[in-house]
């Protein structure tokens, strides 16, 4: 599974990082998010899906391999 964050939609709510700190990195300047891992290992797929559902901007995209 591939993880992407749409930079045009992300507004820095930082909820993805709270839900899954191992999957997201927050930029120091503004707290906007980017993937910490692009390829989500199978054991973290459910967590990635949970973080994606919780994003108020719906900026997190998951693509099945």
């Amino acid at each position, binding site marked *: 599974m591939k993880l992407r964050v749409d930079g045009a939609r992300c507004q*820095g709510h930082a909820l993805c990082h709270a839900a899954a700190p191992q999957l997201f990195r*927050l930029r120091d300047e*503004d707290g906007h998010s980017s993937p910490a891992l692009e390829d989500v290992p199978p054991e973290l797929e459910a967590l990635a899906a949970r973080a994606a559902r919780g994003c108020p901007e719906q900026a997190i995209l998951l693509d099945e391999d």
Partner: protein
Amino acid sequence: MLHGDRARLVRRFVERFDHHDPEFADEEIPFAVYAALRRERPVAWTDAHGGFWVVSRYADVARVARDDLTFSSARGITIPHPVPPVEGLPPDQQLRMIPIDVDPPQFFAYRKLVDPLFSPARLPHQEPDVREIVGRLIDAFIAKGRCDLHEDFAKPLPGILTVRILGLPEADWRRYAEPFHAAIHAKPEQAAAGARDFYLDNARAMLAVAAERRSEPRKDVLSALASATLEGRPLRDLEIFGIANLILVGGVETTTNAMGSAFVYLSRHPELRQRLIESPGLLPGAVEEFLRVFAPVQGLARTAMRDCEIAGQRIREGERVLMLWASANRDEAEFPAPDDVIVDRHPNRHLTFGVGNHRCLGSNLARLEFRIALEELLRRIPDFRVDEAGLRVQPDVGTTFGYGAIPVRFTPG
């Protein structure tokens, strides 16, 4: 109030919405009105305060908030506007709040400047400050076995913290916080009468501090603003004031009211309180859920820049639109069992901090304050009970819902 009277009152507000009507200032009426609006009139016109549209469903509120090109913030974001723009004066000479009253593209330049001041990277440095203030406030009342959780806790915590972050003298926090509390919960006419004066008063004080910091910078927001450049030039006085004044109102008024509502809820729901005491790991989720159910800011306004539509309703250029965050947060289409507090609710995409470009700058700091406040209150005065007879809702909850008095008793410590 009798059941029939309440139903008639709700009906009256559904037909003619007026969030500043004295009878709207109630624990339950606003939420009953929002529910009926979502059901029956999701985009409702009212002739109150010069006329505006009321948008109450989650999907519509989020859509309006995300479309800054169609729905402008530059003509004021509250209804009515406490400090209306002076006719004929260009925007950069107006007494505005920056960047909440500013549209893209200029918005982005300001936002880039203020984002680093409140980024999550700062939280580890802010946490000790929050803990110190929380500890000191509880120390002051814990031996008495009674206090007012609004006056003695929910108000001073954000007040002291915000003033400290800005770099203003901490002992003066009331001088900065109280006029905002008073204005936001006053009748609109009274708020408008006082606002320009205390804005100017704040401006003088903040700019004097900024001038000192220019030569002797410290690690505070006014130092950062005093030395900041925008498009290659230093910030103008009105810009420094516009940013600092927004941080002040955003910092002091919102968090106070959200925390107060949560304290009242916990007093009324001892089983939930016990669960949070036993499992503090639930607190971050509980904070999110309290933020959803007790959104302090009920809604913010936009102005249509062209003829458009919202959910099939035609909106004309120049008309104002009130986006009801507090209603969106209780929309059954987005949140199952929307009136229930479910501390592990997921997803919980509430709109308490807004959505889109104008997302609340202080959201992460507010979450931190809220969590530590709950943690420490539940640890140090776990059996606090609200004296319901002394509990008071603010006299105006149209812009910000909250309590003006939360007397409690507890086992002295």
